[in-house]
């Protein structure tokens, strides 16, 4: 190819790309929601003299163009692949993929102030509601999957031993610590999601139950959702990786439980089959982020009652604990305030803690960012 032809080819090729993508940008209908990123996408901003003069239109227009860019997910995949394979970056926006296809996200460094803040929050709950209620208080920390994959794959990992030690030292006055970290390994977590697999944590449930003085029915039946599970990291990584299968465990006792969602005031199921067709299949467990749930076990052979303060990891654990209790109250203080107020939806008006055991069980992801605890 001589230089003159090259100039023509270059001009035509680049013009086709530039004007073609531009035309696509201008005329592509806007989409409302990104399933891979699980968020609503920006829509065309309000166009008026006021928004133009104030510059508000221009500020939001860029977000709109980024969110509504044609073939956005494919372009994000190109970026992720280029960053990994061309530029050799070990992570892309803090997301990394191990050689065995497991996706992780840096949770680093250990924020000691946040861990202490979480411990103080639990102490506040203990002093305010639990001190004289006659029940026992337990604490367990769930290591996130970085504890098993980050260091071995050459990524940044927190000092988990220090993490557990900090948590224990700051809660030992009021809670019995139950160590579950030795029962977990990387295979107990989804490839594409932050969470653990319910079918892999029956031993964790047993350890907790034993430490809290109850026994569990272990006649589980394994069920599998038809739809494959693209976890939260699947969309964030934008890389072509294998999706997960989501299993859930049922039993006669689990099936017979009566569960009430106090956010809606309605009964619900342990496994929400509507969510099983949604974009986040993990929300199948206890319908995802519900702040206040009570599970009654009509087949209970014990009068023991439990209150669980938990994050999303608890959604898949609590069903396994149901057989060991007459009732379990499940509370997520990321969405409901733990502060003592006279408001009708405050903790003191919602829950009767009398003679109930209490389990605080949180993942290191939440404890290391505990400002989310209210």
């Amino acid at each position, binding site marked *: *190819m*001589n*230089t*003159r*032809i*090259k*100039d*023509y*080819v*270059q*001009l035509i*090729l*680049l013009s086709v*790309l*530039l*004007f073609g*993508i*531009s035309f696509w*940008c*201008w005329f592509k209908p806007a989409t409302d929601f990104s399933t891979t990123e699980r968020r609503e996408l920006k829509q065309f901003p309000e166009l008026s003299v006021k928004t*133009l*003069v*104030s*510059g508000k239109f*221009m500020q939001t*227009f*860029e977000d709109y*163009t*980024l969110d509504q*860019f044609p073939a*956005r997910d494919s*372009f*994000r*995949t*190109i*970026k*992720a692949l*280029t960053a990994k394979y*061309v*530029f*050799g*970056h*070990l*992570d892309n*926006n803090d997301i990394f993929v191990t050689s065995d296809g497991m996706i992780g996200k840096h949770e680093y*460094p250990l924020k000691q102030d946040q861990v202490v803040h979480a411990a103080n929050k639990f102490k506040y709950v203990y002093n305010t509601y639990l001190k004289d209620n006659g029940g026992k208080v337990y604490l367990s920390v769930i290591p996130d999957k970085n504890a098993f994959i980050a260091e071995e794959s*050459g*990524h*940044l990992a927190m000092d988990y031993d220090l993490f557990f030690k900090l948590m224990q030292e700051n809660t030992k006055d009021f809670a019995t610590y139950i160590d579950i970290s030795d029962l977990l390994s990387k295979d107990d977590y989804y490839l594409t999601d932050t969470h653990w697999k319910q079918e892999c944590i029956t031993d964790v449930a047993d350890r907790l139950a034993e430490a809290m003085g109850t026994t569990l029915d272990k006649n589980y039946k394994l069920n599998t959702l038809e739809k494959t599970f693209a976890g939260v990291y699947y969309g964030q990584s*934008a890389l072509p990786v294998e999706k997960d299968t989501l299993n859930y465990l049922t039993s006669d006792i689990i099936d017979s439980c009566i569960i009430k969602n106090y956010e809606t005031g309605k009964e619900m199921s342990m496994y929400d089959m509507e969510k099983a067709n949604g974009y986040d299949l993990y929300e199948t467990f206890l319908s995802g982020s519900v702040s206040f749930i009570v599970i009654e076990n009509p087949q209970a052979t014990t009068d023991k009652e439990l209150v669980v303060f938990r994050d999303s990891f608890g959604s898949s654990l609590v069903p396994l604990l149901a057989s060991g209790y007459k009732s379990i109250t499940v509370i997520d203080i990321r969405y409901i305030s733990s502060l003592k107020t006279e408001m009708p939806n405050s903790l003191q008006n919602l829950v009767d803690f009398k003679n109930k055991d209490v389990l605080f069980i949180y993942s290191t992801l939440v404890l290391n960012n505990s400002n989310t605890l209210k």
Partner: protein
Amino acid sequence: MLFSSIPFLYYFLPCVLITYFISPRCLKNTVLLLFSLVFYGWGEPKLVLLMVISILIGYISGLLIEKFRGTVYSKISMILGVVIAFSFLIYYKYANFFVENFGALTGISVPVLKIALPIGISFYTFQIVSYIIDVYRADTCAQKNIINLAAYIAMFPQLIAGPIVRYVDVERQLRTRVHTVDKLSLGIRRFVLGLAKKILVANALGELCDIFRETSGQSVVFAWIYGIAFSLHIYFDFSGYSDMAIGLGHMFGFNFLENFNYPYVSVSVTEFWRRWHMSLGSWFRDYLYIPLGGNRVKKRYRWFINIFIVWLATGFWHGAAWNFIIWGLMFGVLLVIEKLWLLKHFGKHKVLSRIYVLFVVMISFIIFNASSMSQAWNDIISLFGFGNLPFITTETLYYLRSYALIFIIAFIGATPFMKNSIAKIRETKSGMKIINTAEPLVLAVLLIIMTSFLVDGSFNPFLYFRF
């Protein structure tokens, strides 16, 4: 609006190109001007007025200088034009600095003025001033057509981050310029390569600098990585922007002068400044250094004073803060030392000379990028192990591994190695064929990759916006 943004690439640029090329020749400058005002107003709608007033001042001054040529009024017109143009710059860029330092010096509490710095004011003010002075010196005629003058000053390719284009260099092109396929093709290549320098290299190195600032895992080695990364970041950021500006200029038929010429291969600081931000260096040479007498003064100390004045002004031009002043004066000191003792030795020890240049330039950019002089001091002493930092940390090793390839690309890209290698390959017939076949494909792939980085990324402002 940023060149490295989706709104510019896929909304603004196609619109301006189509409108420009379908417009008749007599309207092309008007089209450029209108789109340039939209481009400028996109970020600062209210400050378009300030730029329009500045343009009017330049325009009227030029006409008055020419009308009264040969009389004292010509000089008065020139002085008035320059003073008014600079007064805007001083008010918007330096008022707070003076107020703060007056307060600190006298102990009088003076409220800080809430003044937003208009983007690109340092660049377009310098263009207006150079126009006024050039007309006064009769190096060029006053522009009678305000559209042409406004199109020159407000032209979006170089409006907000240079290069500082002289009116005399584009005066003829404003009236008549040719648009050819090879010029368009050249412009596209230069623009895409500039965009790649900015998005793929400068932004990655900028991320690493941010990580250094935020991490709790700083170390002596990380301090060196930061110094080197920022030196490369600012080069790829700014020279990438200049490449884009020059490339866009070609697309619209203009030939802007080069602004960078591989400064990191210099063997002296004197040479470095002949290769770095050349349009600014030549502006200060022609409109400050030479009028002060330059090196043609009787007393040697007078020459050095001239050098210090120029470098004080250069530092202050970059920002209204003490670290910029110190940065400028540091170069003033280095240039005097080189002129007095060092320059004659540099030719003999090229490797050592280059190490010296890279080291002092890195130190200067650490000062340049610091938010305060105390931060600059901490960053510099950290390099030598006096910052109470460990020698190396896990984070240092992680980020070194993660950014190693970017560093290698940046090291090679900062030298003429690739340019020379391609030129060498082009010398043979088969080599020419290979390059000509590969070039359009490489540019197309680069554009797609850069688009993917923009879609995935967030807002990446250019460093030189704040100047």
